């Protein structure tokens, strides 16, 4: 052991990420119905690491250390538990004999098996019988190693709410007898869609600024990207739309640092300092867009990524290709005719066609009566048309509807300018 090794040599979030990996592997080993046992083993392992490393030094191979301890704890559990068949349908017979027990456990901790286990866990967490909000909570708890408290902070809700969502998800796992399988054949495509949808929602949740705990919310974006990356790495799930979603996340994430000023005020796209956009994330986005082009398919993620890429490609707000963006929104609206897409399409039309057209389109949208961004957009158009009294009226409506501190700040300053 190197005495000079210190904590700084540990990767950021190592515990959190390894927790997710180990829970996935152990759940596969013990069977998903024993997910709580898996979680306990991981918790014990990390506690042991915390109290051991803290007194001396970080071991040369911290990850190997964690896996060894977790493996031993799992083997102890399996030895105590005699009815192996009720433990893991996949490995039960191999865990019965002392001869194959250790090697089976060891094999599951190999890198490619870990990835496979995480992917299976994603499918289980995003099982169609589990409600979307529970899917996300369970994903964050099991795959991302976030505590109920951290999840509730990120979602601006109570611990109780999150605990309930996770409880319901776990109940579903038991009643529906959900296993850690990779879905086959015809089922695969729709199950991948469910995973992607969940990751998309997770990312968006982290992306919208709430003004409460920005750091932990950016963690949500990071976790969504990490898991989406895993999906794109597996031959079975690397659909073009998986890559398109990751591309979209890269483009959005590239602007994370530019969208708030020092005082945490929102900076709209129009006014962002584009030199603060993360170049490497942007080029990763473009790279993924190319990969997502074949075999040919058009998903909403393709279109959203293409829209985001138009912004990334523009040197300034004025040089943005709004005609392309408007056209992409028209295509998106065909695939996904919902009022939010309609609203974004209308906003794009303000630059692609003219403000009057945008106002017209916006006025026709039904279903966004409780959506602050809807009123804020109308206010913005009126402001640009120099109709300040109307602008003020709509900004005020938007202000009444948002609970985000950042957005309130922004809207108040807009009202003051009217």
């Amino acid at each position, binding site marked *: 052991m190197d005495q000079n090794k210190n904590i700084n040599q540990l990767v950021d979030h190592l515990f959190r990420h390894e927790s997710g990996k180990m829970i996935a592997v152990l759940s596969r080993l013990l069977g998903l119905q024993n997910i709580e046992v898996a979680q306990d083993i991981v918790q014990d392992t990390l506690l042991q690491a*915390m109290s051991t490393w803290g007194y001396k030094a970080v071991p040369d191979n911290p990850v190997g250390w964690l896996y060894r301890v977790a493996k031993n704890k799992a083997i102890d559990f399996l030895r105590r538990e005699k009815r192996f068949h009720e433990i893991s349908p996949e490995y039960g017979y191999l865990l019965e004999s002392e001869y194959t027990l250790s090697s089976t456990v060891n094999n599951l901790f190999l890198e490619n098996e870990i990835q496979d286990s995480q992917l299976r866990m994603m499918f289980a967490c995003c099982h169609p019988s589990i409600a979307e909000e529970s899917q996300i909570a369970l994903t964050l708890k099991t795959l991302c190693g976030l505590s109920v408290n951290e999840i509730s902070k990120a979602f601006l809700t109570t611990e109780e709410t999150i605990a309930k969502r996770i409880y319901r998800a776990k109940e579903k796992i038991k009643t529906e007898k959900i296993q850690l399988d990779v879905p086959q054949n015809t089922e695969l495509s729709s199950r991948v869609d469910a995973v992607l949808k969940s990751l998309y929602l997770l990312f968006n949740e982290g992306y919208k600024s709430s003004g409460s705990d920005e750091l932990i919310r950016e963690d949500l974006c990071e976790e969504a990207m990490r898991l989406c990356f895993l999906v794109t790495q597996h031959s079975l799930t690397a659909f073009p739309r998986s890559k398109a979603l990751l591309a979209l996340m890269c483009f959005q994430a590239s602007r994370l640092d530019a969208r708030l000023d020092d005082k945490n005020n929102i900076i709209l796209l129009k006014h962002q300092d584009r030199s603060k956009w993360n170049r490497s994330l942007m080029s990763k986005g473009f790279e993924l867009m190319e990969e997502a082009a074949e075999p040919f398919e058009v998903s909403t993620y393709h279109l959203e990524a293409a829209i985001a890429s138009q912004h990334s490609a523009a040197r300034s707000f004025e040089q943005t290709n709004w005609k392309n963006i408007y056209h992409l929104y028209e295509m998106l609206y065909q695939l996904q005719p919902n009022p939010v897409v309609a609203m974004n399409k209308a906003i794009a039309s303000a630059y692609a066609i003219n403000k009057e057209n945008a106002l017209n389109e916006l006025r026709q949208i039904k279903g966004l009566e409780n959506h602050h961004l809807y009123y804020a957009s109308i206010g913005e158009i009126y402001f640009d048309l120099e109709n300040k009294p109307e602008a003020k009226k709509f900004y005020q409506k938007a202000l009444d509807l948002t609970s985000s501190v950042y957005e309130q700040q922004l809207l108040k300053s807009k009202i003051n300018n009217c």
Partner: protein
Amino acid sequence: MEKFMFIFEGVQPGNLSPEHMQEHMGKWMAWIDKLRKANKYVAGEPLLPGGKLVSGPNGKSVTDGPYTEGKEVVGGFFIINAKDIDEAVELSKDCPDLGHGSKVQVRQVMKVEVGQPA
């Protein structure tokens, strides 16, 4: 320079998230680093929870314990260098567990001259 032992007593927090555990460990590592750089740190070992209590003549009585529920469980120890007890106490105040229901016993290691009459 004298040697002192820090004995860490307290309950291990059970409900920490992985992120918090890593953070907490980071504080311990930073503390050790600081002691090491100042040439104060000699050794340290963590102790596993549980164990046995042996008592009676010839160790007749062996019981399980100390129990982890107890407040006074020893989680581990450091040996450090310090000029005197005052300096040792000052050094112990950086222990990241303080304020979370934990205590540090600071004890001086007695110097025994082996082979010399006392």
